């Protein structure tokens, strides 16, 4: 079962430039959360702060009662064993084969025999669909395969929290759909807490249980997926629907004149909320909410056409509609 991550009042600046200020949120145990934000808003910095690679200037991050913003280096190395991290390009060790890469954490941190290690590695390689590529070097395979290999390595110590740094960057739509499906399936199997940093709207709309938006040096909103997808808040609405009308400009935020010039009466209606991506066996994940549950509980009327199998042009992967239909 996953572990809860509680972030309180986190602030980080590089020199005079504030990256974000006063970020507070809780990643609920076992759920999938997505952190969104325009390019250059410090999403990756946030992720690295969560694992203690970057020290925040202020604030706390509590994981199992330990504040990793202030704990000792020794505690930090201990707490990191709870984490699995998928870095942007997989961050495979270039001098080792994929097998050795995935086996690396096991050889370092466990006293398992080589045959036990081999069993675990092959199991994870099967999970991410890389059987047959164990003897390749990271330089010899494609970016998508490197990402999947990075995922296998992140999974090998059975982490309680898994962080994904742009799992879909540089991948074509089909591979992105496969990675999304893989993440949902992994969450079903491992029941770990997931945090995905991305700016892929399709991923953000269909994969997570919770969405957060980093924008204008602060956390604009964090909450259940349906809350953000039905939100009228300008920045959230603009980002989640990929529109040019709204407070987010080409370079950071727009100025007052530009905003005033925009005619808000022409805002298109909110698109329907798509169904969440189901695990490939069609059974919902342990932490997966009923479609529309949040809207019903909070008296929010979802946009017309929400939660239908064919509801949205965003639900591209065919497995989704099959899985949803079978339900």
């Amino acid at each position, binding site marked *: 079962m996953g572990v809860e991550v509680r972030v309180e009042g986190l602030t980080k600046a590089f020199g005079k430039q504030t990256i974000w200020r006063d970020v507070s949120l809780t990643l609920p145990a076992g759920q999938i959360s997505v952190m969104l934000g325009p390019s250059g808003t410090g999403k990756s910095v946030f992720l690295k702060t969560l694992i203690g690679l970057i020290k925040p200037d202020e604030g706390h991050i509590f994981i199992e009662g330990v504040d990793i913003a202030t704990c000792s280096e020794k505690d930090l190395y201990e707490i*990191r064993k709870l984490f699995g991290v998928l870095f942007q390009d997989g961050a495979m060790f270039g001098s080792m084969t994929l097998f050795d890469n995935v086996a690396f954490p096991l050889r370092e941190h466990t006293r398992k025999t080589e045959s036990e290690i081999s069993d675990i590695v092959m199991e994870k390689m099967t999970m991410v669909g890389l059987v047959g590529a164990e003897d390749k070097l990271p330089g010899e395979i494609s970016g998508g395969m490197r990402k999947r290999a990075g995922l296998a390595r992140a999974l090998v110590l059975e982490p309680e929290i898994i962080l994904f740094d742009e799992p879909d960057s540089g991948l074509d739509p089909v591979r992105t759909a496969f990675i999304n499906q893989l993440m949902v399936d992994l969450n079903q199997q491992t029941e770990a807490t997931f945090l995905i940093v991305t700016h892929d709207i399709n991923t953000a709309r269909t994969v997570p249980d919770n969405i957060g938006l980093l924008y204008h040096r602060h956390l604009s909103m964090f909450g259940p997926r349906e809350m953000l997808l039905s939100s009228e808040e300008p920045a959230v609405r603009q980002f989640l629907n990929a529109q040019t009308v709204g407070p987010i400009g080409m370079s950071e935020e727009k100025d007052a004149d530009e905003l005033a010039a925009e005619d808000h009466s022409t805002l298109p209606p909110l698109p329907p909320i798509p169904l969440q991506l189901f695990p490939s066996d069609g059974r919902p994940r342990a932490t997966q909410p009923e479609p529309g549950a949040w809207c019903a509980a909070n008296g929010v009327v979802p946009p017309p056409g929400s939660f239908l199998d064919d509801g949205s042009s965003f639900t591209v992967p065919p497995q989704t509609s099959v899985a949803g239909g079978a339900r």
Partner: protein
Amino acid sequence: MLGVVTGPLATAGKLFAFGADVLLAVFKRPFQFREFVQQAWFIASVTIIPIALVAIPFGAVVALQTGSLVQQFGAQSFVGSAAVLAVLREAAPIATALLVAGAGGSAIAADLGARKIREELDAMMVLGIDPIQRLVVPRVLACMLVAVFLNGLVSVVGVLGGYIFNVVLQGGTPGAYLASFTALAQTPDLYQGMAKALVFGLIAAIVSTYMGMHADGGPQGVGQAVMESVVITFLLLFMANFVMSALYFQLIPAKAL
């Protein structure tokens, strides 16, 4: 304006803090013996040939300079001793420094820099492994070991080069050259050459690992880190060389004739 002063000071401070971290990590177990051997072999393989090729003209030039100088004083019989002294005390450590910093150090900075921008170092830390203990310590120790051996190599090749140059090309007498070998040179000269090489290896490795691990901004950042590591290493090495030479003259009395 203040930044002009504080910038380099801050970097110097961080470099020292990094050096202290490395020193502490040296005593952490398990020692990465395999990495140490691989790195020592790697550094040796990129430096041995160039350093031998550098040592020959180095020895020759020293023989040429001292030869003509000593001749003017009418002390041809001491050409050998002057050449040995110059090679052992200065030429060998300096040539070692050039190659360890230029070839070994730049290779280390490029390697670690590439790992840094590919986020391999972050991944390593996340997997609960300290890159300083795992990657930096073996490189620093390997660099120091190789530097000491290279110093020996340059000494031998340099003295041989000087001998050949003096005897074959300048028409010196082999007997006089060899006989005066130990007239001025003493064993502490050899020790100080080795001590210098050890310190140079340490400085070159610390600077280049530090620069590599703090590379930033994509492939261009790696190039920048390599360039900076070579320049800073040279600066520090020549400074350290001066200080160590000055100390040596204060501490060890010159051999009486």
